[in-house]
């Protein structure tokens, strides 16, 4: 009796807001609310399945999943890079999904070999330059930016950002550590100024003439140009004769202890459908993962490019090695 009372009291005190409605998907999202909520709303409208979500950085979200274990309310983990998805799979937080739709819609190099996660949009990390200072003919590859001719002309974002960690990880996958380290050291010695905390500041510095060339994600370029169309900046697609432009994905996987796996898979499938892909890419000027669909016209205007076809899972596998390499090369 008194135990029962105590239990009831505890429950009242805790307020069981956590109870899981029968037909709803719960998403842990590292993608910012403004870039994801419109899609959840559209999904709910189309399917009648409500979506509950919280946002945070990948690290805490994964620790959260780990701590909650079987009690987790989460069905889907959504991130903005492949490295963290690889780590989530590595830690056993995700489960393989068998879905003909996903198999068909997501290219092989943009998903987990075991189908534990799927890339949903492509984020291309490419070269940006000041059109007053350079011509496209001056540029060729990422590796070329290590050439001493760029001394004092290169701007880079901090190595703490996962996008750069993925870029270097993929270079390690292609060329091995020794050569990659030489390239990164070359970049560092070419830097015009301290590395930047974000891509936007970096592009502004290029536009202002502090340096001439840098490496950024394309959607930051799109956002900046939308606000300041006069900036004399242009994108360049490097490595077109060789490996292709480095791409990463924003993607998702189904959580191992998902309570509502069916709806979760349905959400993932919807993301790769025409409407899902359109919204996913257009909300943030990214590229659709599903090759059947074209990007937004502004984005298409930057030209098409050959992308690097190494599986993006490598970015996760080699991320720690990349971080260590950049530390050694004193890339801050």
């Amino acid at each position, binding site marked *: 009796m008194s135990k029962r009372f105590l239990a009831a009291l505890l429950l009242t005190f*805790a307020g069981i807001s956590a109870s899981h409605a029968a037909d709803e998907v719960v998403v842990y999202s590292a993608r910012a609310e403004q870039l994801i909520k419109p899609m959840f709303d559209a999904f709910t409208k189309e399917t009648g399945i409500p979506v509950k979500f919280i946002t945070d950085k990948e690290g805490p979200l994964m620790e959260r999943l780990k701590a909650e*274990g079987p009690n987790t309310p989460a069905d889907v983990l959504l991130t903005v890079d492949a490295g963290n998805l690889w780590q989530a799979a590595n830690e056993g937080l995700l489960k393989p999904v068998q879905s003909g739709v996903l198999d068909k819609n997501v290219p092989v190099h943009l998903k987990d070999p075991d189908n534990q996660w799927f890339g949903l949009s492509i984020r291309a990390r490419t070269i940006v330059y000041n059109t007053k200072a350079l011509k496209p003919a001056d540029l060729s590859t990422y590796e070329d930016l290590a050439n001493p001719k760029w001394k004092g002309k290169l701007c880079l974002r901090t190595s703490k950002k996962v996008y750069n960690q993925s870029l270097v990880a993929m270079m390690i996958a292609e060329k091995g550590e020794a050569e990659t380290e030489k390239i990164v050291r070359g970049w560092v010695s070419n830097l015009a100024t301290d590395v930047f905390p974000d891509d936007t500041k970096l592009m502004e510095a290029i536009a202002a003439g502090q340096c001439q060339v840098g490496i950024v994600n394309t959607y930051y370029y799109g956002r900046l140009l939308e606000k300041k169309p006069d900036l004399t900046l242009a994108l360049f697609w490097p490595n077109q004769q060789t490996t292709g432009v480095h791409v990463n994905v924003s993607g998702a996987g189904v959580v191992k202890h998902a309570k509502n796996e069916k709806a979760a898979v349905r959400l993932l499938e919807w993301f790769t459908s025409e409407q899902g892909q359109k919204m996913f890419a257009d909300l943030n000027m990214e590229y659709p993962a599903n090759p059947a669909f074209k990007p937004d016209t502004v984005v298409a205007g930057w030209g098409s490019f050959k992308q690097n076809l190494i599986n993006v899972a490598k970015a996760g596998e080699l*991320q720690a090695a990349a971080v260590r390499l950049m530390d050694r090369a004193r890339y801050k």
Partner: protein
Amino acid sequence: MGVSRMLRDPWSLAALFFATLVLVPVLVVMSSFLHPVQEVWQHLFEHVLVDLLWNTLWLVLGVGSGTLLLGVSLGWLTAVYDFPGRRILSWALLLPMAIPAYVFAFVFIGLFDFTGPVQGCLREVFGSSTWFPRIRSTGGVILVMSLALYPYVYLLARNAFATQGKRALEAAQSLGHSRFSGFFSVALPMARPWIAGGLMLVLMETLADFGTVSVFNYDTFTTAIYKTWFGMFSLDAASQLASLLVIIVFALLVLEQLSRSRMRYTQAGRHQENNRIALAGWAAWGASLYALLVLAIAFVMPLIQLVLWAYGVFGQDFDSRYFGFLHHTLLLAGIAAVLTAVGALLLAYAARRNPQGMTRHLVRVATIGYALPGTVLAVGIFVAVAWLDRNLLQLLQPLVAIEAGMLLQGSVVIMLVGYVVRFMAVGYNPVDSAMQRMPPSLDDVSRTLGVSQLTMLRRVHAPILRGGIVTAAILVFVDVMKEMPITLMTRPFGWDTLAVRIFEMTSEGEWERAALPAVTLVLAGLVPIIFLSRHGNQNE
């Protein structure tokens, strides 16, 4: 005091409770030492650690001296002198507290870096701005953090100087010391517990800061912790680094405590009414100008920039949900502030009753949460609560029909626990400083009048400590409003706050859009700060 006696003393038990609350997540973090990660450490030793220890040392020394210089000088000016605008300035100088340091950092860099309007103008006029000091530098980050954090020192120093009165200074003058030398030999040492309290908060905040140093890309212990976690996927190594941080801070706290030894800071005899010394001529205008300059750089300038940005995105981003964000922010901050202040009062009281031994150490432990980087602490809290939840569930499931899910995790209880754990130091310092001001004889007097401990706390101590308690509550209030990692990790679905909005925008590098929630946050934070200063003025 023996352990068994401690367990019988309700105040020590309260201290024990709060210490446990803080200790559990800290121990979770420290338990990482059970999983050695040798190769990460070897890498850190070889390539990272030396640099970042120096960086961290410079930052701590720089921000420590910067906040001391600003906080103590401004506190001294506004408490002891009278000059044009003093009344308004004395509370306005607290306002920078409402602006999160990382927001200030971003604004500062936005304005003064190479691509910013200031250097842009200089290039227009002079053709070059290469002579302009580098902004994203050690000096820059120290300047920004000092300007953002000085109010902690200022607030406590001002209170100390104001209650000290002129008497001690006059005594020094009558012994042949100039006012200047008297300030250093008497006024400053006598204000030491207060100033040290404020400085401790600043240093803990500096050590745990991630947002500001990230904007400057200044590598510290904390950035290494996150890089190890997020970049190398080694939370264990990250937690081990964080544990070292805790140990360093704890050592500092104990050292400060020991060095005070038998000294007291309560002035014997009655306090004189506090007549301010009126400054005249250039001294008066100099004082006004100095205070105004600090206020302009640390508050007015960033606020104007934020308002301009917010104005630009208002039509696009503002909607009715903002009232919800504001409501959540104020509600959480309010409850957390009250809980923390009560906890701080119990702790300070326990320490007063048992100045020796275990209790004193427990109290120190209970304030250590502030020194941990927020996200690391958030994980510690979350892991502990999730464990508790799992076991509660096992206990409860046979008794009541309940589906697997979450109890504490799904409620705001965990958020509040998190805030109390993180901000106990912020609440404890002002309350403890106020406690030191009460002569010990007061307790004896009350006891001889036959009142119980609780009655004494309520009727004698609480009214005297009111200033300290209100200060504590409001500092915590403002800090909770700005808090990000615990809020992000522990909030139940739908409990988004203004800080969460700022995170959503800044995580995508959209600083201009983050200005809208930031401005709302600053404006909401002004209310309690103005209340605090009003209250403070009455106390003088």
